[in-house]
């Protein structure tokens, strides 16, 4: 991908073509990676599905943190809302069609996003972080208290989704769940690419850099971020619902501060403010974690810590951010 982008730049094609080209390329690479994943790791599809689910959460976080500059350590509230809503729809209301569960998850995620947004936007910087932490703890505690609905700390079990489209069962190998997840991820990715490149996306990036300038253009900072929070909630809801459908259990961990913090770590690891950065961060973190924790289940945390430190030292803008900045510099040098 990088090489191709290079060529385009050297050929001096207009920016428009280059952008659209890299978009198609990005989607193509994700598809290729998904297919490769299916055939290279046919026995790890559950893990890959989980990675997709978390990737959706990280993408969702990127929308508010990377594109709008909102600092949050409570984003799992949106993800968990989607997961619990989809799970409860199945367990308590008999909505077991996966697509219907997905819709419920998206709605709940959006609602949770709006609620979080209203509260989180009341402050900036560190106090904003604290607000987000408070929100995720309140969500967590509410789910713990409402144990007759949520199963409390034992988890919401016995979620039994119907076959997808009435044809494909969710099997032991997670093939259906994986393909379902890949399709969802692609749809979300394409929609988000459109959104972040749209005038609205530009407005958001502007807000991240300088809200005062945006206000001086006559645009509403608050209103814009709230919209982004709603979209972010929907995306997190997709991830949460996918988690509920593929795992068939929803635990309190999906609403936890820990998951929120991990998502932030993955995002920063990949690079904020780009969708591919979010994807690369999630995949590399979870993949690395899986390998080292299987190699040494007892002391892997140290190695993950070392990885994070190395990334800050040698790729301070995240894996994707640093790589693309490096390529940009090389392009300039060649000009």
């Amino acid at each position, binding site marked *: 991908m990088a090489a191709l982008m290079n060529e385009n730049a050297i050929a001096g094609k207009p920016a428009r073509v280059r952008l659209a080209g890299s978009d198609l390329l990005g989607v193509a690479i994700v598809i290729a990676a998904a297919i490769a994943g299916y055939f290279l790791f046919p*026995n*790890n*599809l*559950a*893990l890959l*599905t*989980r990675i997709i*689910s978390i990737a959706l959460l990280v993408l969702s976080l990127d929308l508010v943190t990377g594109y709008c500059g909102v600092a949050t350590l409570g984003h799992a509230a949106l993800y968990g809302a989607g997961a619990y809503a989809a799970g409860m729809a199945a367990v308590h209301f008999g909505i077991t069609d996966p697509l219907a569960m997905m819709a419920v998850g998206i709605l709940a995620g959006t609602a949770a996003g709006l609620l979080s947004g209203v509260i989180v936007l009341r402050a900036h910087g560190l106090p904003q972080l604290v607000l987000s932490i408070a929100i995720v703890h309140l969500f967590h*505690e509410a789910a*713990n*208290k409402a*144990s007759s609905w949520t*199963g*409390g*700390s*034992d*988890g919401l*079990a*016995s979620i039994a989704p119907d*076959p997808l489209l009435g*044809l*494909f*069962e969710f*099997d*032991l*190998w*997670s093939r259906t769940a994986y393909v379902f997840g890949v399709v969802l991820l692609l749809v979300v990715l394409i929609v988000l690419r459109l959104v972040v490149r749209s005038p609205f996306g530009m407005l958001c990036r502007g807000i991240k850099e300088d809200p005062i300038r945006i206000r001086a253009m006559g645009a509403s900072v608050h209103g814009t971020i709230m919209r982004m929070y709603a979209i972010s909630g929907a995306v997190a809801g997709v991830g949460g619902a996918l*988690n509920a459908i*593929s*795992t*068939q*259990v*929803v*635990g*309190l*961990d*999906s609403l936890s501060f*820990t998951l929120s913090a991990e998502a932030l770590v993955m995002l920063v690891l990949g690079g904020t403010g780009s969708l591919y950065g979010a994807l690369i961060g999630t995949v590399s973190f979870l993949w690395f974690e899986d390998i080292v*924790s*299987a190699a040494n*289940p*007892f*002391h*892997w*945390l140290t190695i993950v810590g070392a990885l994070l430190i190395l990334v800050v030292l040698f790729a301070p803008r995240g894996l994707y951010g640093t790589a693309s900045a490096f390529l940009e510099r090389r392009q300039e040098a060649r000009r």
Partner: protein
Amino acid sequence: MRRIIMAALAAVSLGGMAHADTIKVGVIGPFSGPFALQGKNFKAGIDAYMAMHGDTVGDDKVEIIYRDVPAPDPAQSKALAQELIIKEGVQYLTGFYFTPDAMAVTPLLTQGNVPMVIMNAATSAIVTKSPFVVRTSFTLWQTSTPIAQVARDKGVDKVMSVVSDYGPGVDAENAFKAAFTAAGGTVVEAIRMPLSTNDFSPIMQRIRDSGAQAVFAFLPSGPTTLGFVKAYNQNGLKEAGIQFFAPGDLTQESDLPALGDTALGILTTFHYSVAHDSPENKAFVEAASRAIGNPAELSFPAVGAFDGMHVIYKMIEATDGEQDAQKAVDAVKGLAWESPRGPVEIDPESRHITENIYLREVAKSDDGTYYNKEIQTFEKQGDPGLAAAN
């Protein structure tokens, strides 16, 4: 689709037969993170069993594969279980410290043709989720019920119950309440504290104000327990003669050195004390201490793991190394043996372990270490929790 699955399943089971010489056992537990100590105990129990009974059953070599789920995370647990079944080809799944992690895996068992031996997760309902679940640990109902009788015997009429607000805590509260009320006592107040509570002084003040003669408490082992027991002493409840009853998680052996004198005299009921006096236990403690490195870290999950391995070895024996979950589980229904904790039996109905529950008191030994001294035995206790749920 279904046909593909059946074909694939057949392939898997054929594969199982063809390579019966190595039998893989997948262990899922918290081996890092805040509960690493419990995972370490799993490993110690497993290592001890294999050190004492060899790593072969008949001609088959047993291989253990560990996977880490640091904190309750059902999605992670399920993904790992799937990977263990499909990729690693394990014939048995075991471990499971947390209930949700076990719950997430139960739907896989039938399809994967894999029995699950739970070494700890203590919510009653898990065994009902799949016919292939066997449990060698305990339930909170099992360990918290007898203490109610103990309290009554000590002449306590009014108790205040204080538990951490999560599944096991709620189970403990319900079990105690049911048994204590049935024995003619009154639970004057029942408090469920958030798990994140650090400062217990206000709770202690509340216990005092409630006019209860005793407190029944359940908290997860570790820092919260230490804080709670210290607060009990420092706020003068002990001096005021308010008695302290709890299930044995509270005086887990690995916490005793930290608890020190403050824990002296606390009465707990539990299925296992490291100080249990029997030749089986002596041999176990010796082997497990060697396995864990620091004997002070040894506590109850190790015995759950040790007996879990016993059950798995019996299953392997019964199936002759072939992958047959039904046959394996059937073989251990009603299995009785002398565990380090005392005589035990797998209840053929519930597939949960029937065991003795002991009343213990924290005591100081001659060499200055603390231990749970067994002072009374409640024999052959089943799990009242299943009945209560129905």
